[in-house]
């Protein structure tokens, strides 16, 4: 230690490191492409398998994107990682579950005397209500989460809200377990968005099943993303949100109620997470108190991948992550167990090349 006092710090040439990093990243990229090329040539995976993989990736990516937008919205305004966001999604997922469950219990007699559940008699109403309630509960959770766990910490050191968020996440998860029990609950879908039925697409001699639930999720997540984009870009609320994100103090001077905008941001991000939760239930069929954890972390990754604080970035990051996760192992010819390894490696690779994410505009250096 003693020498350390006297030794001058050795200057590392800054430029060289950048070049070395670039070269290293380039080499890795080339190797990756070569590997993918070889595997694709060798493997017996037909076109149908690739189609299946891409569709799966898109569907899961859409959900990641919806949750990631929530992370990004909150981050853009408060510069905090809302660690409890996955749990908000879980609560939304339960909301949808209970709606379907209730409607399934109501019998309806058709004209020809057959008895079916209300769920299948009025599927559109059921789905709408499931999403409304799921999103509503999640939005409410987001609202109170902010009010109870984050608002008192406004102005505290930056990591403090993160810990509070972690605490809230643990609390919500365990509350979910105590309220709804440890078991996994199965979503009962209306037949029109069934998980097992769907369009058979003939391709290369076999048929690929595109399930109704999958298509529904895909379309809905795309719609919600467009709607959110319009909300942020075109409405007064969106403008206020962007203003607050850019500079809270000035925004307040311009007559924007910052606290209210922050609350509304949490409501919106909660609603999106809730919709992702209901979608998750509809598509994967299950929900329990732990359902938010993995997607939460993945979506956080997606948000960073796209450039945190950037809404189109979160969408692209989510879809990209979903596709990499599902196609990656097959394309690289390695175990599916290593899906997450691939996803996170890609994240590291992308961030080495673009330190602020795919669409990030050096946000962290200037704005934080």
């Amino acid at each position, binding site marked *: 230690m003693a020498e350390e006092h006297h030794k001058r710090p050795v*200057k590392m040439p800054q430029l060289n490191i950048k070049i070395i990093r670039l070269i290293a990243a380039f080499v890795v990229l080339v190797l990756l492409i070569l590997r993918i090329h070889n595997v694709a040539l060798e493997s017996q995976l037909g076109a149908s398998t690739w189609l299946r993989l891409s569709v799966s990736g898109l569907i899961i990516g859409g959900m990641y994107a919806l949750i990631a937008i929530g992370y990004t919205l909150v981050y853009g305004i408060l510069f905090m990682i809302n660690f409890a966001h996955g749990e908000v999604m879980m609560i939304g997922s339960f909301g949808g579950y209970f709606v379907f*469950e209730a409607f399934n219990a109501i019998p309806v007699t058709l004209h020809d005397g057959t008895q079916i559940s209300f769920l299948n008699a009025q599927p559109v109403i059921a789905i709408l209500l499931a999403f409304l309630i799921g999103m509503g509960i999640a939005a409410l959770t987001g609202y109170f989460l902010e009010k109870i*766990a984050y608002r008192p910490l406004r102005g505290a050191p930056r990591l403090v809200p993160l810990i509070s968020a972690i*605490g809230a996440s643990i609390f919500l998860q365990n509350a979910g377990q105590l309220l709804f029990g440890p078991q996994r609950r199965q979503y009962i879908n209306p037949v029109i968005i069934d998980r097992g039925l769907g369009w058979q697409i003939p391709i290369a001699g076999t048929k690929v099943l595109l399930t109704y639930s999958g298509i529904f999720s895909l379309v809905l997540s795309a719609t919600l993303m467009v709607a959110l984009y319009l909300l942020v870009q075109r409405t007064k609320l969106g403008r206020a949100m962007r203003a607050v994100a850019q500079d809270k103090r000035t925004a307040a001077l311009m007559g924007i109620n910052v606290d209210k905008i922050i609350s509304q941001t949490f409501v919106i991000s909660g609603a999106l997470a809730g919709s992702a939760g209901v979608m998750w239930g509809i598509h994967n069929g299950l929900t329990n108190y732990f359902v938010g954890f993995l997607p939460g972390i993945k979506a956080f990754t997606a948000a960073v991948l796209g450039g945190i604080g950037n809404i189109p970035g979160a969408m692209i990051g989510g879809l990209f992550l979903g596709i990499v996760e599902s196609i990656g192992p097959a394309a690289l010819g390695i175990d599916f167990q290593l899906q997450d390894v691939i996803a996170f490696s890609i994240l590291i690779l992308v961030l080495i090349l673009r330190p602020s994410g795919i669409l990030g505009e050096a946000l962290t250096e200037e704005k934080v």
Partner: protein
Amino acid sequence: MNNLHIQKSAKNGLVFAVIIIFLALIGFTVTAASMIQKVFGVEVSVGTMPKYSALIAFLAFIGLWNGWRAAKQTEEHPLQAGHAILAGLASGFVTGLFALGYSLIVGTLQSNGVNVRVYLSSLSPESIIYFLFGQSPLSGGFIQLSLSTVSAAFGALLVIFWDRSQHQFLIWKQKLSAWGNASWPAKLRRNVFVGYIAMGVVLLLLVILPRTWGSYWNYVMGTVGIYVLLGIGLNIIVGYSGQLVLGYVAFFAIGAYSFALVTAPEPHNLNWNFWIAILVAVVASAISGVLIGLPILRLRGDYLAIVTLGFGEIIRILIKSDLLKEITLGPRGIRNIAGPTLFGKSFSSDSDFMYLIILAVLLSIFLARRWQESRIGRAWLAISQDETVAQATGVDTYKYKLLALAIGAAFAGLGGAIFASRNQFTGPEDHVLMVSINVLCLVIVGGMGSIPGVILGAFALKGLPEILRELESYRLLVFGALLVLMMIVRPEGLWPATRPKYEENSPPPVTVEGGSR
């Protein structure tokens, strides 16, 4: 007392209504009642509910709190008794109304044969009947209503008594502080030898306690000690150099596994000496820290956080994957990990491990202190305050960040090795994301950059859940709530850091704004 006050009280009552209904829904009312009963020495026998008096005590306690808060909310100085009681009554009545509504709904569902438990798993029929005091829904609900209202009124009255007796406390407080400022205690405090004596007492306790308090406390305190070790390591990264790392468990895992692999008979049968293996673990973790740091330390803030989080997940998945099964034994984990030996003697009892952990902690505290006060520490401080400025003033930020990561990783490696050795077993489930999160929490809960804070934080984070074991399935719920509460009450941490002074008359240090700018 006007309408506004009544409104405020009603709002307060609403909050408590949510709390009561939530507690009832998760079945906590029953658990709390059993705990109260236990405190009074009456065990609750299996399969039966505690006595109703225990439930009344619990509900009354919440009611008192309710009234207390309602009365405090009026913000009247001096508070008039009538107003206070009115506020308490209003608040308690609102809460009670909701409790009545809840009782009616749940009780009616129950008596109509609906199995509520299918949806809300904590609501067993017995617990519903218990909440209704064994009465019909309506009368049970009215008992709730009256209980809530009356106890809230008493809670409000408590505020009055508190205010009346307040000045007595103030006098005592003044006396105490006067005593504290008196000349001889202050002199005593400044005396170096007193500090040494205090230190000596602590050390004596550290020497004696592990031999006296039995294996369970050795185990719990050992875990706390290992987390202190981890906390000190992460504190160097997050607290000193200001880099947010969420994948600290990766280094912990690398330490534990490299230690396990070179000492365990399976899978490689190397059976190295304990001390050499510890060294291997520390070096391996430090090297991995440098390796992961090289490409990513340019990233800032949350980008670094998520990349390191990803790194931690990558390590965990690789350890349990089929790919590395030959090397790490996959999910099965490694067993028969060696304990410490010295001069051919085995030192593997729980108290021996406790000593080992205490030594390791003392050593790491010593090292961390030394580093913090050295040139390196000042470089870290500069980086954590403002990286761009630090760079501009000639600090090689990259190098010092790398150094922080390597040192932090080495501490994690040491912790991992001791952890594996003490349990004689390590598996992938020991190295999950929650470990990183726990360590980060303890650093921040304790107070970032402060070593006493880390120790306190480790007690809070790892000791508390063990203490909360009595709460059984509610312990993590309570733990999460406490974490939020702790942050709200003390955002700067339990024992905030005081920056070392480098020069006389230096301006007061700026409070550190977050680790990750």
